[in-house]
């Protein structure tokens, strides 16, 4: 009997998700033992036409990491969707847009202009990338950037979501174990649309620090708090920690070692807009009734977009609801 097919694809992302998968060490051998790797550009050579040649849903499991930044990403998303039985939105870029999603704060032309004119960019002719270029050999094309970054689920139907930037290796291993158990008939798949490889509550739940009533008089950057109390809730020490709104599952890695949570596991279950949640939560514990003082305290968060939407901007309510998007754009 031939083994079920596995695929992993990357689009607008940094590659860290791939590393995280490799990082499961010898577990990767289980993947090989149980799956036939049909398509995984990072790990092995295969062409798009090989995928196109497959039957629909012939790939059992496809882990997709990366945001939908350009037309090729979108094209591949449709292709992989068609060819895969289970499509997993893997990692923060695919699920929430992540760092590429911050590009949505600017028009694409401005992004490109910035990228091609930075101090360290050597671009004497001040060129810009063109989607179509004539060369002696003929016409060559590169994919056009879409006017904004989309998450995978905003473009195609997704079966499961696995958050994290990148997903923790122990969570990846657990998911792989689960899928293998399902293959062996020992377990059942979670309901479609579920978040897998993560918890249901927030980072605070896994955080070992002491939590008290909160009353914040000033927000400070972590390097300005010396020394950070190793036992006490980081937020209570005035450092804007995103733990209270961020989905659990990482074992509170950052706060455990004295760094604030920056939110890479995305919103907790049932949270509609991650940034809005955090903003109301932080606002609620500011210890002042004087509007001017409140302004001052808020000035302690110099980059609100980065603080509240570093990972979630492309999936936030700011980007119009998913249903509206589906109706109008795809």
């Amino acid at each position, binding site marked *: 009997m031939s083994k079920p097919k596995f695929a992993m694809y990357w689009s607008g992302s940094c590659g860290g998700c791939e590393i995280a998968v490799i990082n499961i060490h010898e577990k990767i051998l289980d993947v090989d033992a149980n799956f036939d790797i049909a398509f995984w550009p990072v790990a092995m050579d295969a062409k798009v036409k090989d995928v196109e040649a497959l039957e629909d849903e012939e790939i059992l499991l496809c882990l997709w990491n990366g945001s939908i930044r350009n037309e090729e990403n979108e094209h591949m998303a449709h292709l992989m969707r068609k060819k895969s039985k289970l499509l997993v939105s893997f990692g923060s870029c695919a699920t929430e847009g992540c760092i590429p999603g911050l590009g949505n704060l600017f028009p694409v032309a401005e992004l490109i202009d910035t990228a091609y004119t930075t101090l360290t960019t050597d671009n004497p002719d001040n060129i810009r990338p063109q989607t179509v270029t004539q060369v002696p050999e003929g016409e060559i094309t590169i994919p056009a950037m879409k006017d904004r970054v989309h998450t995978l689920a905003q473009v195609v139907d997704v079966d499961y979501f696995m958050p994290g930037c990148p997903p923790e290796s122990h969570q990846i291993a657990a998911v792989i174990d689960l899928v293998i158990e399902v293959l062996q008939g020992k377990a059942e798949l979670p309901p479609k649309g579920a978040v897998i490889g993560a918890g*249901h*509550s*927030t*980072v*605070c*739940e896994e955080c070992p620090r002491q*939590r*008290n*009533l*909160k*009353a914040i008089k000033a927000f400070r950057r972590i390097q300005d708090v010396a020394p950070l109390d190793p036992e006490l*809730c980081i*937020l209570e020490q005035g450092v804007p920690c995103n*733990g*209270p*709104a961020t989905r*659990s599952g990482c074992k509170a890695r950052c706060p455990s070692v004295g760094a604030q949570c920056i939110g890479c596991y995305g*919103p*907790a*279950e*049932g*949270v*509609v807009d991650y940034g809005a*949640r*955090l903003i*109301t*939560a932080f*606002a*609620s*514990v500011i210890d002042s009734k004087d509007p001017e003082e409140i302004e001052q305290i808020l000035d302690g968060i110099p980059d609100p977009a980065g603080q509240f939407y570093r990972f979630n901007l492309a999936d936030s309510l700011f980007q119009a*609801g998913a*249903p*509206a998007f589906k109706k109008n754009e795809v």
Partner: protein
Amino acid sequence: MSNDKTNKIGVYVCHCGTNISHTVDVAKVRDWAAEGLGSEGVVIARDYKFMCSSPGQELIEQDIKELGLDRVVVAACSPHLHELTFRNASKRAGLNPYLTELASIREQVSWVHTDKEAATEKAKAVVTGAVERVIENEPLEELKVAIHPDTLVVGGGIAGIQAALEIANAGKKVWLVEREASIGGHMAQFDKTFPTLDCAACILTPRMFEAGNHPNIELMTWSEVTNVAGYVGNFSVTIKKKPRYLKEELCTGCRICIEKCPTKVVDQGYEAGIGYRKAIYTSSAQAVPKYPVIDTENCNFFQKGTCKVCEKSCPTEAIDYEQKEEFLTVDVGNIILATGYDLFDARKVSNYGYGRLPNVFTSIEFERMCNAAGPTSGDIVLRDGKTTPKTVGIIHCVGSRDRNYNNYCSNICCMQSLKFAHLVKERTGDTVYDFYIDMRTPMKAYDEFYQRVLEEGTLFVRGKVAQVTDAARKASEEGKLMVQVEDTLIGKQRRIPVDMVILSIGMEPRHDAKETGKLFGIGCSANGWFTEKHAKLDPISTMTEGIFIAGTATGPKDIPTSVAQGSAAAARVLNMIMRGEVTLEPIKASVYQGQCSGCRICNSLCPFNAITFLEDRKVSEINPALCQGCGTCVAACPAGAISGTGFSNDQILAQIDGLLMDVTLADA
């Protein structure tokens, strides 16, 4: 957005006479609901002239019964007005009332737009939002809680005393909390009261005495409320009892300490700054309770460490310099606020010279002066304490009806000025000028009193006084106060010499009314008076259930009206007590504990102290009996672990989806 729950929804569009139909094409909205929202489960859509009328409500009831409706949307006025009406209609027909939604197409559409076509489109969107929302509504059961039979009355002026006595006489216990050392309020300072001229003390002291000795009244003077927790029927109130420096249980009220105390201070309170009191004092000999207090700021012992004359002279050893403030927590079911008013500061109108020109007095100073038990034993004299004036000018509306100060009418000053005119005439036979802008004497026997004062010979000058000055322009003006006024009846500027000027200063909200309002969870108007639930139909209730207001705390008024309000508030409270239990809206927040991370962000936010943190399980929990459904914590919880019934994410997002739905497309 299709409705997989296969609901049967009825939509009712109200014309509100022409209030709505004038700007919204009601038939079009109805047709949109019937045709455009059929896929969402709307099975019947009707329009009607007045949905809130009995036939209108019966339409709904009939459809629920005959068509088996399981959701109702009424597109009419604001939920503030008729949500309850329509929920009750549904309830009568056997439908859970919380499956009925009101879509406001009057306040939010017809009243705020003029373009009929656009307004109709908006009305359709609002109705669509309500339909999408109502699909997500869950049936809710109202909560019933017992009402604690005790009542808290805050403020022991005439309004508070009246309220307390009414309730106590009905056999129910009252905590009467008064900030000053004695109850009585402003009325205790007066000499005579208009329009009948009975002596204030004669009619007030018996009431004060009764309140002070009533078996059902727990009188707490020199006390203030510092915290209010809980909700209608079940308030828990913390009262701070300030130290009197005297053991009340030992004091017999003999007043020997007051007599012996060597320190005399100007009494800015009760005597309005024109009389003295000792460092240990009661407001007057009629004070209730009779126990004195020590004014530590002026007491030799507290300031310099020596003296102790009061301690030595007290025959019962009641003086206790070590006394500390005490806090007491009491449970009550209802609260009446009768905190009264403050007086306008006459110094602000500098052109009238109060504080600069000695013989310019305020009305409250004059009240004390007229009072037989006051500093001048009732003699009307100039600031020197001996000279009887020959001519007196009384100025109305000082600080009132004036855009520079308070724009409202202080209600009582016309009558109080007439009362003064009468008293001056009666006691001195002086020439009296009364400077008024408009004479306002509308209540029972008030205008008759005005006529009486007219006949007594008071000279009325209609016009707003520009200035009171002692700068003489000619010899005959030397030593006089000159009142500069335009007499609008003869159309001339006049300069009238008088010896004494009385300023009828207006009433103002208590300086701390806003904080008091906040403490008890009620609002204040722009001017600062406590806001009634309904200015006409419910003037003694507030938007917070179980908190009532009475007397001048809600705005300027005279004694009869203050008393009537005290009685009315008491009747309301008794009504609540008789009912025995209240029905609480089932709009509540709850923590889904599986999602709660125990971050504790919500813990200090609840204005009703409904949230507790369970240390052992490291999660937060909401007490449904305490939760008032304000939604504060729901918004704050970063984990999305708190949800509010009636305002769930599903409901709100569905409503937004509905609002954004294309309502023109399906129309074509």
